[in-house]
Structures are given as C-alpha cells and as structure tokens.
C-alpha cells in the first residue's frame, strides 16, 4: 500500500492552506472552521492552530456530524445504523465565512449532506471547502476551494487518511480495495 503523503508533507500542506485562507479572505475576520466528523475535526483544529501561528488570531472551530443527513441512510435494506456522533458548533454561523473541512473529497455526497446540515444552523455569508485529498470521481457539482493534494485514483482504490489524534500516525495511503 503506497504512502502518498507523510507527516511532514501533511503539515506543510495544512500550513499552505492556512496562508491561502488568509490571502483569499484578507485576514480572519468573520471566519470560522467546521470539521466534518471524524477526521475533518482534527484537521480543522490544526488549520486553526496554523492560522493562530501566522497572525495570532483565534478562529472559532466546530465539529459537524452529517450522519442524519446522509442520502444513503435508509436505503440499505437491513443493517446497523451508522454511529451517530455529536455535532458541536458553539458559535452562531450567521453572516460568517465558514470553512468546511474534510479529509477526502470523492463523490461529493458527504459535502452535500454537510451543506444541508449547516443551513439548519443559520445563514452563513459564504461556505468554502477545504480538503486534504481530492481523489476525483465527483457525483455532484461540488468543488473544493483549498486542496492539500490532488490524487488521481480509480474507483477500485481506497484512500485512507490517518491522523495522530485518531489513528496514532499522520499519513495518507492508497489501497487497492479487495476484489468485490
């Protein structure tokens, strides 16, 4: 299983994204980060830390669980429901520029669900999308504003982002999925 990103590269990609955020938004005023559970949340915290490191501002950071908004939730004939985790957005999102953070952008369906969820919390001025990996194969008209790394993949492959906070190691690997 080839590693496509190690801890060093991941950290540099996140720092670069932090700079791009500042450039594009001319500072951190009205900004807020929202990470999608599970791995978007530590990534959002790291970007917040990088922003703090660059210009000393603290950007509010929240966590969003999109399980209840999934479009495939009630479609499997029988099976366990996905584990529901807590959504924590301890600030008003009205009129903010929201930076939505996820680890991998693939079909775009997770982001569609996240956008629906966020709209239930208020009316942000804008939502921008940050992903660590864009692996292509979109099924919905969704595009990331900030990308850590583009990785061309085939649908048969799986992209695993591992983070110290959850998996004990920082790396991205591409696996060939088991033959179906």
């Amino acid at each position, binding site marked *: 299983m080839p590693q496509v990103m190690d801890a060093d590269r991941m950290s540099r990609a996140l720092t670069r994204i932090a700079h791009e955020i500042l450039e594009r938004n001319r500072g951190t005023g009205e900004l807020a980060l929202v990470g999608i559970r599970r791995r978007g949340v530590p990534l959002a915290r790291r970007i917040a830390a990088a922003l703090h490191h660059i210009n000393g501002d603290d950007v509010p950071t929240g966590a969003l669980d999109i399980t209840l908004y999934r479009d495939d*939730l*009630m479609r499997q004939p029988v099976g366990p*429901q996905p584990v529901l985790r807590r959504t924590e957005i301890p600030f008003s999102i009205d009129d903010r520029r929201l930076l939505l953070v996820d680890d991998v952008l693939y079909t775009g369906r997770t982001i569609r669900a996240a956008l629906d969820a966020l709209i239930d919390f208020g009316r942000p001025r804008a939502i921008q999308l940050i992903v660590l990996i864009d692996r292509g194969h979109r099924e919905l008209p969704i595009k990331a504003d900030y990308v850590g790394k583009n990785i061309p993949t085939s649908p048969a492959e799986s992209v695993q982002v591992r983070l110290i906070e959850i998996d004990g190691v920082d790396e991205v690997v591409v696996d060939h999925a088991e033959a179906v």
Partner: protein
Amino acid sequence: MLRARHLLGIADLEPGEIEEILDTAEAMKEIAARPIKKVPTLRGRTVVNLFFEPSTRTRTSFEVAEKRLSADTLSVAVAMSSVTKGETLVDTVRNLEAMAPDIIVMRHSSSGAPHLLARLCRSTIVNAGDGMHEHPTQALLDAFTIREHKKRLQGLKVAIVGDLLHSRVLRSNVQLLGKMGADVWACGPPTLMPRDLPRFGVTATTSIVAAVERADVVMMLRIQHERMHGHYIPSTREYFALFGLTPERLRGAKEDVIIMHPGPMNRGVEIDSDVADGPYSVILEQVSNGVAVRMAVLYLLAGHEAEGD
C-alpha cells in the same frame, strides 16, 4: 447495533445496546438547541402513535421526537376510534397496518400487548408502556439523565420509592440499572411490594430512611390510584407520612443526590413540593431528555425496518 427490530422491553437489551442508545441520544440532544430543530433522517417514514391509555408526557414526547426526525406521524385517539365500537386490538392494528406505517408506538393497559402485536405485524413496534410490565423508553431516559449527572451508572445507589407493585417504570428501571451495575433499592408499603424483586438483585425495604441513606439517586413513583381496585393504602395522608419524600428525609442522601420522578406527580402524596421544585430535582430535565432518547430509539430501529419485505 440493536439486534431486535422492536423495542418491547429492557429485558431484551444487552448492556452494549443500552449504551449505544444512550450514546446516540447524547448526539441527538444537541438538535434541540438548534434554530431549526429538525433533521431529515426519517423523511418519508410513517409512525403511528397508538395510545390505548391516557398519556400526555410520553405521547407528546414521542410525537416531538418523530417530528424532529422528519417522520410523518399520526396519533390515534382511542376514545374516538373504532375500539369503542368493539373492535379487537389485533383487528385495529391490522387495519392500521394496511396503511403501511413503518413504526407503531403503542401503549396499552394489558401487559404483553405490544409483544402480541410484534409477532403479528410487519411494522416495528415500540412499547410506550404495557400494563404493569415495562416502559423501556422511560427507563432509558432515566438512565440517560443519571449518566449526565453522575457520568456513570455502575456502582451508584439508586433508591426507587413508591407504588412498586403497579409500576412498569420500576420493572424497566430495575432491569436496566441491574444490567448496568447499579445498586438498586426499592421501598414501599408491604401491600405494594412485588414478590419477585430479589430475582432482579434489588434490595427491598419498607424504610424510606434506609433506602435514601447515602443514595446517589432517589426515584419517586406515583401512587397509581387508577390501578388500585383494592385497599392497598389506608389513606394518601398516611402514605405521605410514612413514604413521602420530604426535605428532612432527604438529609441522609449524598450531597449531590438527584431526585427523579417519571410523572405525573402527586404533590403531597409521594413527594413534597419543596423537594419536587428544589435544587436536587431533575424532573424537568427528564422530560427534555425523553425526546432525545426517543429520537435515538427511532433512529436505531429504523435500520431494521425493511426486514421481512
């Protein structure tokens, strides 16, 4: 995941399943704090609330939970239904089923009624209280409320005081608390004491002082006048004098004790108003938590619905 596709009683749940429901409810609770208190999860699903017994809290709590999950709900008021014209329970439910609901939430005065329907129906059945048998979502919301305050259930002393004999809340709670490792005490007059309590690992006593002594949780049960067709207690005044929860009786409990009541309360019968409205009371929290717990149950059961199609 939940193994069964119905929720009939705590008896059928394993500790891991109880924890899964409580953890899911924790995530559901946040939805009540949003500007738009609704998620699209059960869109297009139909839930029938079938209450053959009066209920305000449980019925509205289920309705709110269903609506917050975007299910279509309909509540059948039995007093105005064909049941009063002599239709049997099974026929009533078969006719409702012909309209293809996904989940039926039911309360019935006969113990075991939801179990009977679960065998005959294609819908998922949720027991919202059956006679003197079980009231699983009440025990789950009680456990959720305790866990929120104490961070655990294991090892807590929980005193349950009141009309034990007629209480389905007691039967569900002793099983749930027992499975989760709490030390359960039950206190009531000998005439209202079920004989099978020791089977559930419960310490039975007629002394409220002993029950409340060093308790982490005191759960008061209602005197159920509507189920008392015999002379179980001489008078409500005497009952209050011997078993009512007063500020004085509460002194033996732990400093951070919480007081619970499944409602509806009979003030001055089983509980003094000063205690019910006092600083240790979490009675209204129980009501808000009820919605989150019922959302969790509906969400987890919805994964099973298509079975048998």
